C-alpha cells in the first residue's frame, strides 16, 4: 500500500506517455525505447501496471453501464416469454396460421411483381450489384483507426453510419482514393446514386489509384441504376474489371 501510494503523483506528461503506450499509440522507435526503460525502471513498471488495470476497469465499468441499458431495452415480448414457464399450446395453431398468411402474402407479392416489374436497367443493376467486401480491419495508426471504425460499420452493412464516420476524414484528406472509393460504394449500397457518382468519379480520374478499375465498374452501376445508359456504357468500357466486361455484354444483348 505505501509503495503504491507514493507514486500516485505523476505528471500529466508522464501519464500521457503511459497512456499512449498502453493504447498502442506509440511509434516503433519510441516504443522500443520505452520498453527498454521498463526493463530497468521498477517504478515505471509499477505505474504502467497500475494504469493498465485502471484503464481496463474504466472499460469494464462503462460496459457494465451499457449492459444495463441493453437490458432495459430487451424486447417486451421476449420478457413476457421469459417470465412464463412452459410453451403455449396454441403456439402450434398460430404457427400454422402464420404459414398460411405468409403464403398468401407471397402470392400477392408475386402478382404485384409481375404487374409492376421494374425497368430493365434496374433489374440489371439488382442482378449485378454487390458491395465491395471491404478491407480487413486491422487497427494500426491513429488516422487509420477512425477509418477502420467506419469499415466495421460498412461491413455490417450499416452504410449510413460508415458514411458519417468517413465524411470528416475526407474533409481532412479530400484526395484520398480509398475514402472516395468506399464512400462511393457505400452511397450506392444505400441507394444514393448521385452521391455515389460524385465520389467514384474522383477515383476514376486518378489513374494511379489501385481502385481505379473497380471504381469504374461501380460508377457504371451507379449510372445504370439511374437509367443513364450511355454514361454507364462509357464507364464500363473504360474499366478493365471483369465484371464490367460481363455487364457490357449483357447490355449489348
Amino acid at each position: 500500500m505505501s509503495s503504491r501510494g507514493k507514486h500516485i503523483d505523476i505528471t500529466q506528461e508522464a501519464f500521457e506517455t503511459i497512456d499512449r503506450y498502453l493504447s498502442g499509440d506509440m511509434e516503433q522507435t519510441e516504443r522500443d525505447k520505452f520498453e527498454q526503460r521498463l526493463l530497468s525502471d521498477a517504478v515505471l513498471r509499477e505505474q504502467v501496471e497500475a494504469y493498465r488495470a485502471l484503464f481496463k476497469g474504466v472499460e469494464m465499468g462503462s460496459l457494465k453501464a451499457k449492459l444495463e441499458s441493453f437490458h432495459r431495452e430487451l424486447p417486451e415480448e421476449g420478457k413476457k416469454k421469459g417470465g412464463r414457464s412452459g410453451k403455449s399450446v396454441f403456439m402450434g395453431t398460430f404457427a400454422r396460421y402464420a404459414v398460411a398468411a405468409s403464403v398468401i402474402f407471397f402470392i400477392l407479392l408475386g402478382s404485384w411483381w409481375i404487374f409492376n416489374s421494374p425497368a430493365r436497367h434496374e433489374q440489371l443493376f439488382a442482378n449485378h450489384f454487390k458491395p465491395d467486401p471491404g478491407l480487413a480491419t486491422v487497427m494500426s495508426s491513429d488516422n487509420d483507426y477512425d477509418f477502420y471504425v467506419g469499415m466495421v460499420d460498412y461491413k455490417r452493412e450499416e452504410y449510413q453510419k460508415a458514411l458519417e464516420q468517413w465524411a470528416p476524414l475526407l474533409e481532412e484528406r479530400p484526395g484520398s482514393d480509398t475514402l472516395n472509393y468506399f464512400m462511393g460504394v457505400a452511397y450506392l449500397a444505400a441507394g444514393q446514386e448521385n452521391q455515389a457518382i460524385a465520389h467514384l468519379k474522383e477515383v476514376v480520374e486518378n489513374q494511379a489509384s489501385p481502385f481505379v478499375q473497380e471504381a469504374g465498374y461501380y460508377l457504371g452501376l451507379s449510372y445504370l441504376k439511374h437509367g443513364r445508359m450511355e454514361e454507364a456504357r462509357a464507364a464500363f468500357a473504360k474499366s478493365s474489371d471483369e465484371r464490367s466486361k460481363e455487364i457490357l455484354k449483357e447490355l449489348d444483348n
Partner: protein
Amino acid sequence: MYLACSIGIEKMQKDTVNLNHGKSQKDIVSSLKINDESTLKELYQTNYFKIEKFVLNNNGSQEQAKDIYQEAFIVMWSNVKDDKFIPQNATSLEGYLYQIAKNKWMDYLRSAHYKKTVPMMQSVDKNAQSDVAAGLYQEEEEDKVSQAMKAFEGLEERCKKLLSQFYFEKKSLKTIAKEMALDPASAKNKKYRCMQALRALVQTK
C-alpha cells in the same frame, strides 16, 4: 398476445441469423475490440433469453439470471479482447457465452446457496469443474481491475462520461473535446485529472 409472442421469437431468430451469417470471425473480434455498440447490443439481446430460461429452470429468479448473464458477458468480452478466447464465428462465441453463464450458475448453486450474490469478478476457474474459463484470470490482476471498476462507478459524472468516451467508445480526444465544448488542451488535462481521481479512489479503498 400469442401474436406478440410469436413475433418476438421470429425477431430473435432473425437476429441470430444476422449475427451468424453477416459477419466473419474477424469482424466479430474487431467489433468487440472496439466495443462497437450495435454488435454488443445484438449479442447481448439475442442470447439473454436462452440463459434466462436455463436459470429459471434451475431454481433461479429473473434478477439472478440477469446478474449471472451480465457477469458472463463481461468475462466473454474480456477474454475475446485479450485473445484468450478466439471465436471461430458468431455461433462459437454465443456457445462460449452460454457455457460461462451456465458454469457460473452451477457454481453458484453448488457453493453459495445462501450467499446473496456472487462477487463480480469471482472467476469460475477457481472451481475445478468449470473448465471453460479455466486459467483465464490471474487473481491479482483481476482484483485490481475489479477495484478500478468499482471505483469508476463512484466517479463524478463528468469524469465518467469523459473516460468512458475515450477508453470505451474509443472516440478521439478531439471529438470528445468538441462534444463537451472544451478546447483540446483542457480536455486532455481533464482526462488526466479524472484518471488521477480514479486512481486515488482505488487507493483509498
